């Protein structure tokens, strides 16, 4: 956790308006945890780039940092399989911090859902035209 916290991977932002970028924003400031996770997906459905920003404790930052590392190189469907339990295990999170890994899983799913949503309107459009 300390390593991911002190040297977080993939901090930053992608262009949220780009068609192949999915953005997930989960959590609430009132709970002390907010994660923004973005993925850039290529034409083959593979995640080529990921970025995150987190308002939260060291475990939250580490969980989202790890999440960005793990999604890179996976297809959208493979990334959806990432479970919070895997994240928690990898980081050896204590029970009191498990919600951080759950939020990271939520962030991945939210980002991928956003990406899929952006693809569908185009699909519908082309289907209507046809």
């Amino acid at each position: 956790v300390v390593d991911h916290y002190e040297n977080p991977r993939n901090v930053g932002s992608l262009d949220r308006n780009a068609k192949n970028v999915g953005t997930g924003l989960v959590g609430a400031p009132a709970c002390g945890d907010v994660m923004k996770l973005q993925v850039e997906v290529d034409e083959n459905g593979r995640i080529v780039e990921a970025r995150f920003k987190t308002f939260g404790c060291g475990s939250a930052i580490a969980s989202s940092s790890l999440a960005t590392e793990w999604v890179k190189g996976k297809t959208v469907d493979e990334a959806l399989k990432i479970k919070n339990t895997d994240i928690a295990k990898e980081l050896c999170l204590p029970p009191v911090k498990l919600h951080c890994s759950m939020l990271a899983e939520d962030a991945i799913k939210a980002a991928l859902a956003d990406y899929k949503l952006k693809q569908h309107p185009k699909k519908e459009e082309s289907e209507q035209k046809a």
Partner: protein
Amino acid sequence: GDGALRPLYMDVQATTPLDPRVLDSMLPYLTAYYGNPHSRTHAYGWESEAAVEKARRQVADLIGADSREIIFTSGATESNNMAIKGVARFYKSRNKHIITTQTEHKCVLDSCRSLEAEGFRVTYLPVQKNGLIDLKELEAAFQPDTGLVSVMTVNNEIGVKQPIHDIGEICRARKVFFHTDAAQAIGKIPMDVNDMKIDLMSISGHKIYGPKGVGAVYVRRRPRVRLEPLQSGGGQERGLRSGTVPTPLAVGLGAACEVAQQEMEYDHKRISQLAERLVTKIMSEVPDVVMNGDREHRYPGCINLSFAYVEGESLLMALKDVALSSGSACTSASLEPSYVLRAIGTDEDLAHSSIRFGIGRFTTEEEVDYTVQKCIQHVKRLREMSPLWEMVQDGIDLKSIKWTQH
């Protein structure tokens, strides 16, 4: 140990190091003079008793009391329990109502809660945004059977100083006992039990450069305050607190009080300057920082700051070379932030973003400067990583967002 450097200590509200003069005073009683102060029949007992009585006078002198009004305890938690439960139970046939505040230390709140289970009624006064109680609300809270008011002098989380003089007046006029938890106040600001019309006071050793495991409770003799003892036994401490008085610890507490009396003015001036330095430097370099609690009615050595858009625990982790504490409860089992911050109306996200800086007798200017520099550096870094900061920079109003629940 292994030569590794230890963090700077900026958490004096949690505990303080022993003043070397206090340690000096204690050592003889930890080595050669080990008698039980209640042993009446030999020199070991007599010299031990003399030391305890001297310590008792030193504690009394610090607060303008008579030494017969000082009872040694294991600490302020026990003193608070004794004062609140002891007084309530003694007078329970005629007084069933207690007034306290929402920002008291857990041991006061918990003592009140346990009394509620015994059939007492308790009013927990709210505080204003500046952390101070509203005196009019206090006056309105009195009922015909109110027996006790308990309000802490200086708050341990945000440093605000309650209007003790005024509260004392109000209570005395209504003949209601006034108890104050002065653990964070004595030895730091002048306290006089007669000036302030205080009837009971809790004192802690390890908050004033004294040893851990000892404290005292002041119990007024004129007019007489009676209390039901919590601890039964051989009748030591006027029957109010049975148990062998731990001579070395009592001596340490007494010495700490005497040293504090001597150093109070100098310490206060120096600590005020350092506190001003810390706050001014941080606020001039970093925007969106809020100081929690009244700017004026406070003890300067306890500074609680909220750094918007940065979470408290992550900042503490970043400031790993400095021993600090936060108002966030990411460190506690629940996701809820400090009840003190909630009581002053701090927005929940800001409550998760707060850090408490403690400046004490031994804090140096260099330590303050180092802490400030690291704090500024890491707040800026964490804001770069914060989606909230990013949204605010983009002109988004965070209050308009529908956040996901968990």
